[in-house]
């Protein structure tokens, strides 16, 4: 059974300015990930601003989890996040993984 780990919620701004810091945070958290991966949940209700750089980062995270046998879940995505992902053709990021 997959364990679900909640990491820090996504900040209001998921964009170029926050990207570097978010990446560092996530890398550290990845290191502490239990073997077998599990689902990492990010509360996305607070996202008010998203840009392509932020989306790219999320993509990289999703991929990083996948190679570790896990998956990414963007929980309770805000309207902004949903619209942004749709425009970028990344609606699959928002799909809940089993």
């Amino acid at each position, binding site marked *: 059974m997959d364990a679900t780990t909640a990491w820090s919620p996504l900040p209001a701004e998921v964009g*170029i300015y926050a*990207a570097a810091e978010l990446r560092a945070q996530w890398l550290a958290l990845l290191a502490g990930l239990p073997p077998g991966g599990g689902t990492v949940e990010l509360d996305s209700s607070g996202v008010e601003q998203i*840009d392509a750089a932020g989306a*790219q*980062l999320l993509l*990289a995270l999703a*991929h990083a989890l996948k190679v570790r046998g896990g998956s990414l879940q963007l929980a309770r995505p805000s309207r902004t996040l949903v619209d942004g992902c749709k*425009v970028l*053709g990344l609606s699959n990021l928002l799909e809940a993984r089993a």
Partner: protein
Amino acid sequence: MSDEDRDFIAAALPVFLSEAEEQVERLEQLLLELEADPGDRELLDALFRCAHTVKGSAGVFGLDALVGFTHHVETLLDQIREGRRALDAGVSTLLLLCNDQLRRLIDAAGHGAADDPEGAPARDALVLRLRAACSAEPAPPPPAVALPVSLTPAGERLWHVWVRFGAETFRNGMDPLALLNYLKTLGRLEHVVCDAAAVPELEMLDAETCHLGFEFGLRTAAGREEIEAAFSFVREDCELHLIEPDAGPEQFVALIQSLPQHPRLGDILVSAGAISQAQLHAALAEQERSRAVGAPAAPLGEILKTKAGVPAAVVDAALQRQARTEGGGEDRFIRVQADRLDAVINLLGELVIAGAGAAELARESRQSKLVQANDQIGGLIEEIRNATLQLRMVPIGESFSRFRRVVRDTAAELGKEVQLEIQGGETELDKSMVERIADPLMHLVRNALDHGLETAEQRRAVGKPGQGRLVLSACHDGGSILIGIADDGRGIDRERVLQRAWDKGLVEHGVVPAEADILNLIFEPGFSTAEKITNLSGRGVGMDVVRRNIEALRGSVAISSELGSGTRIEIRLPLTLAIIDGFLVGVGTSRFIFPLDAVVEVIEGRSAEAAMQPDGCGVLALRGQALPVLSLRTLYELDDTPAPARASVVVVQSGARRYGVLVDALLGQHQTVIKPLGRMLRTLRGMSGSTILGNGEVALIFDPEALRRFAERPAQRATAPADR
């Protein structure tokens, strides 16, 4: 006027004059071409531009009379190209007369006169006629260009966008998401796919570097330029393909073909809307990049097909369009002084000889590296030689076009209807030959018009169409150029020719020469069958001068004719007078060169099979056919060394006939710089020049045509009889 201005004008005036003369020539050619197709939009535009260019440049030099007169011409031409005035025969003749006046004014300018007072009354009269010819109505609104429906911007179309954003996109402050959102304001985004394949692992990812690409459909009424404008800030750093899947290539092709002239492939495609300016620039930049790193640059068309996603059919249509445009004289040229070019070619000739000398010494030294190095130099010299000789080549079509006016005016004067057809105008020959062939051609054309072609009634009376046909043709054949002047007129009456020859004592009375020779009697001096002498021809000084001029160019002229059907005159000229590829042979201690183009094959060591007669002629059986063979040893009495046991045969082709030449040794290919034969040796038949070999020896160059006559006709002396 200051001294500087005077100096400028003195320096620039010759260039203006030469260009203005070209424009005026072109104007005339265009007018004549337009007579066949008065509605041709491109030609009409080009016509206007000729006058416009002359007027503009003339203004710089203060040639007011020229400017003023040209202005009136230009006004009428402008109306014609806009369709407000039709170019009928009357207007065409008026414009031709005006063009003659332009020539006079330009000529006057060449002699330092800003005006040509003698011609002023004629010009005033023409100006009145020009004004009368101009339409007084205001210009109608330009007709709407009927575009295929799917290209009408009013409708929404589905564009396909493929974009790879560059690495610096984020750092440049750009956001692809914002850009896509902006595109949504132009229409609807459909099926957006994000290509994240290039995004590295999180561990390696630099969050500020963009690795994203997108593919999507954009349904919008906006045009290509507008869509691309959305990408303008990221343009430098991304790869963008914008494709219209709706518009099929055929529709683009149709649009391209209806465009006004454009000299450049890129411009054609941009005008058609098949690509945008930005795409064109990117393709050109790509070409530049390749060149900069020394890689062979792909042709622009290729780059546009592969990188810009332009359908191949569209690019091909544009290339065809460009080819037509360039054929119309819109090429980019550099003006070069003819004698500088000649100086270069002379030096090149010396280089070829010196190179051969060096190669010879290298061979003797037996140092393989030296030989190799010399071979390389030899190869480069050959390439430079070819390229340089190409510089002097011009299409003969330019000369031919001049005849349109001659034919038109002369036919009108004689009350005959004649259509001039030009074939193979793009065939190239050496510029100096073009100049020297002009007079003989003129004479032959005039002859055909005067004597060859009948009047319209005469033609109809014998069942021919009223309009006579005169064909000027040119093509390459081996190392020669063949120029033909053919008419479908009354042909040559051999009986009358023979009678005339008897009357003039050219042939002994009662003797009937061979069929082929009767017609050649026309080229004898003092011959003319014209009953009356017109101011065009008939004085009997024409045809022999024509033949002499052609033979002076190392050419030959042949005539064939059928009574009632027409006459054809064929002139054969060498492509160049300067340097040729040759094949070196040895006979005794002498060396000879055959033009390589004329050499079909070589047969080593089979001389025993040739049945040779004492006079030096013989026959060889070659693959079941009889080949006439000539022995150089016997012909030129080269008995200084004993004949080798096994000699060789060089098979030479001249025109449609082949013959063999028996030689002692085959010495291989040789780049041959042609030096003319001295006056003493002019009477030596069969030779067309001489050259200097690498070892300093002189070799004589054969004229395959002349030699052929020896091979086919036994018992001839090698030198011309003394009384000629």
